[in-house]
């Protein structure tokens, strides 16, 4: 029987009345459009790369135009359907969770996995971010990748990525999420190693893939444990059975959540598995924006929010989530302060902001985590695309004067504001947003996370009150450092004197419109994106004017149905989280954060401007701490020495001593012994009829004797 949901066009009504029963229209289109895009672009890529292609490059321009339309177009189609459904959900008020099972994927005696999707308030937010920001980045890529050889291949991979990312957030069970999880990992690998002729870039892709495997193992073990404990691996079943099987703080649920945490740590680049993300910057910049800032790396946060019921029951894991998050945030921020590669700064900034999201979900503020995820997707995508625009212009300018300088090194930039005023302006918006300056988006989301950390520490029976207070201090410190390194980043790139080699400066110019338009839209979102969720505690304060906004606290109410159960558990076991921060009035706290961030910004700007920024001066960093931070705390070296090398030596030992020395010898011995026995047997095989007759007689006698006695 055909499942009615397979019929894409079964329901035609666009609007629904205000009741809670809500059904999406054409949900399969959302997933299938990027897949179709991938197939078309992939086919074109293969066609253009076919052997014996004639040198005229016939009609490749026409095909390129098709790619330019199909690549972003498929994502746009997906985005339109998502928007349509989101609109319908909004009209439905409190929409019910929609589940559709298409077919059975795995079936054993007591283990069944259905291929199905779940659309609820959480996944629609994720889908909107993925397809919306994804579309803008696709648009940007048209300009950025224009002169690349593998243009069709690039868009094929990018479409495939969006396809898997949508599976990840739309799947109705953990195994389906795992399919998307692995798929995005694959696309990440393919796109990091996009310029695979360069060995360094190819091995960066491998590094990302291998480090992620550690997390994937955790995900799998978590799923297995979950199934053995609950007998169900889909979200609905888990939510139904969890409270009946698990106890608050129990060992089993803690173990499961620890495995899921390991998965999240790998995918979201947290301590100790963050090392792949800075290297992932080897890929094209729009890829960094889409995969390594806005969407894929937030999958870990999404996983934890999806499993909020489990995490709420495991206070130890939650404390660990928050601890890992805030340590990563602080740690990555310190490194970002001393990087010179324009993309490396943003990479560490991304790790830092992901740490904030982990902190948020670790203190039970699942909405705050998702909120920061969304705003971060806006301003970090803008920062990356802006950086991409800068690199693009720098590359062309340096190419024009035949300079070998690194177009990504900020020491070669400076004063780009005069050449790229619009990009500069938009990136300042993103910088102010990420620094947490009121009233831009980052302020609201980061403030909520920090505020929730504080109030979690002050809750009636908080599990580890002093620990959470330390987290709170670290989070505030990180917020200030964020303002510092982002100011440094902007000043070094856009202000001061121009430091590019002679003649190259004037060749730098604003990027083409196709790259500028996505930046403008993202700038708009970075500015206003935070207004959808102005928390109530802010309304009582000076900037209470925002209380009048219709969207006040909207996201909180919107996602509430998905995480209601976890809040219930939290309320039962921890009690009401106080509306106070560790330093006193929660109402004034926002001001402290924002003002400090602004102050750091001003100080940083004047400091860097007064310092005569010339290439030579910044090129030398002599201080011990500077060198320590510039070399990223020597973490890569540490891993190399204590993990990679010992692993290599162990493998070598296994290879030379165990495999060659023991297993191979055992195999050879059995071979030789067979040969020896054969040789002995062959002695009886003389070819003489008489000998055979003799043995025949002996055998006959033996049989006779056996029979007789």
């Amino acid at each position, binding site marked *: 029987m055909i499942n009615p949901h397979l019929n894409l066009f079964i329901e035609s009504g666009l609007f629904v009345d205000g009741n809670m029963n809500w059904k999406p229209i054409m949900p399969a289109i959302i997933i299938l459009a990027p897949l179709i895009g991938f197939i078309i672009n992939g086919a074109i890529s293969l066609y253009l790369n076919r052997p014996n292609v004639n040198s005229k490059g016939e009609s490749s321009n026409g095909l390129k135009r098709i790619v330019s339309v199909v690549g972003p177009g498929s994502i746009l189609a997906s985005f339109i359907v998502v928007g349509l459904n989101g609109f319908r959900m909004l009209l439905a008020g409190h929409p019910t969770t929609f589940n559709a099972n298409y077919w059975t994927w795995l079936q054993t005696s007591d283990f069944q996995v259905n291929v199905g999707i779940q659309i609820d308030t959480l996944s629609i937010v994720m889908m909107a971010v993925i397809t919306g920001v994804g579309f803008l980045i696709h648009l940007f890529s048209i300009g950025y990748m224009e002169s690349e050889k593998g243009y069709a291949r690039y868009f094929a991979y990018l479409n495939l990525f969006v396809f898997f990312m949508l599976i990840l957030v739309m799947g109705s069970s953990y195994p389906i999420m795992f399919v998307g999880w692995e798929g995005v990992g694959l696309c990440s690998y393919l796109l990091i190693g996009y310029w695979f002729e360069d060995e360094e870039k190819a091995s960066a892709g491998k590094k990302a893939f291998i480090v992620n495997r550690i997390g994937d193992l955790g995900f799998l073990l978590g799923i297995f444990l979950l199934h053995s404990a609950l007998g169900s691996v889909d979200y609905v079943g888990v939510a139904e059975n969890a409270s009946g099987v698990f106890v608050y703080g129990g060992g089993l649920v803690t173990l499961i959540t620890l495995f899921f945490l390991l998965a999240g740590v790998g995918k979201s680049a947290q301590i100790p598995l963050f090392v792949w993300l800075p290297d992932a910057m080897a890929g094209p910049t729009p890829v960094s924006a889409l995969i390594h800032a806005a969407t894929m790396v937030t999958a870990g946060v999404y996983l934890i929010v999806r499993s909020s019921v489990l995490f709420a029951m495991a206070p130890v894991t939650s404390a660990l989530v928050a601890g890992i998050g805030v340590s990563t945030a602080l740690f990555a921020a310190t490194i970002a302060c001393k990087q010179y590669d324009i993309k490396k700064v943003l990479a560490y900034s991304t790790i830092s902001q992901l740490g904030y999201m982990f902190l948020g979900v670790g203190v039970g503020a699942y909405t705050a985590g998702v909120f920061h995820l969304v705003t971060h997707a806006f301003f970090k995508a803008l920062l990356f695309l802006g950086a991409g625009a800068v690199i693009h212009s720098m590359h062309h300018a340096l190419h024009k004067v035949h300079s070998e300088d690194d177009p990504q090194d900020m020491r070669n930039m400076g004063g780009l504001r005069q050449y790229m005023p619009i990009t500069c302006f938009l990136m300042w918006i993103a910088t102010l947003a990420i620094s947490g300056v009121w009233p831009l988006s980052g302020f609201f989301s980061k403030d909520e996370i920090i505020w929730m950390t504080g109030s979690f520490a002050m809750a009636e029976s908080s599990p580890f009150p002093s620990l959470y207070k330390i987290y709170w201090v670290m989070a505030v410190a990180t917020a200030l450092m964020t303002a510092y390194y982002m100011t440094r980043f902007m000043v070094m790139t856009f202000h001061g004197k121009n430091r590019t080699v002679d003649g190259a400066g004037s060749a730098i110019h604003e990027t083409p419109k196709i790259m500028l338009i996505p930046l403008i839209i993202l700038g708009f979102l970075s500015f206003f994106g935070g207004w959808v969720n102005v928390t109530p505690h802010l309304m009582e304060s000076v900037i209470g004017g925002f209380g009048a906004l219709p969207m006040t606290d909207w996201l909180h109410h919107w996602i509430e149905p998905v995480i209601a159960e976890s809040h219930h558990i939290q309320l039962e076991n921890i009690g009401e989280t106080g509306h106070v921060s560790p330093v006193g009035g929660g109402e004034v706290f926002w001001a402290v954060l924002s003002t400090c961030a602004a102050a750091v910004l001003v100080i940083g700007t004047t400091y860097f401007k007064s310092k005569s920024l010339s290439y030579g001066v910044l090129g030398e960093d002599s201080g011990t701490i500077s060198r320590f931070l510039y070399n990223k705390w020597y973490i890569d070296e540490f891993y190399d020495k204590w993990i990679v090398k010992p692993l290599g030596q162990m493998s070598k030992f296994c290879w030379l001593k165990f495999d060659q020395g023991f297993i191979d010898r055992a195999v050879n011995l059995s071979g030789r012994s067979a040969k020896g026995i054969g040789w002995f047997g062959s002695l009886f*095989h*003389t*070819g*003489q*009829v*008489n000998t*055979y*007759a*003799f043995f025949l*007689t002996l055998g006959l006698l033996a049989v006779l004797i056996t029979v007789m006695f």
Partner: protein
Amino acid sequence: MLPTQVLFLSAVIFVVGTLGVIVRRNAIIMFLCIELQLNAVNMAFVALSRYVGIEGQLFVFFVMTVAAAEAAVGLAIIISIFRHYESVITDDFSFLRW
């Protein structure tokens, strides 16, 4: 003669035949020894048919038929080997060995 004595004679002749097959190297002699074995068996059949019934004697005819056929084929092989190698001494033939 008692059947026991006949069976004893039959066993002696069989052992002589067997030893002949094992020890002698001349294919013709070995062939004769095989015939000796067959006839020793025939003798035992006949002796035992006194207790068992006519089937024993009947079997002797089968054995003789098979022996005649075997003699024809065996001698043909020996002749053909002799034509090729000018020898019927089995020491000269070890081509049964691989």
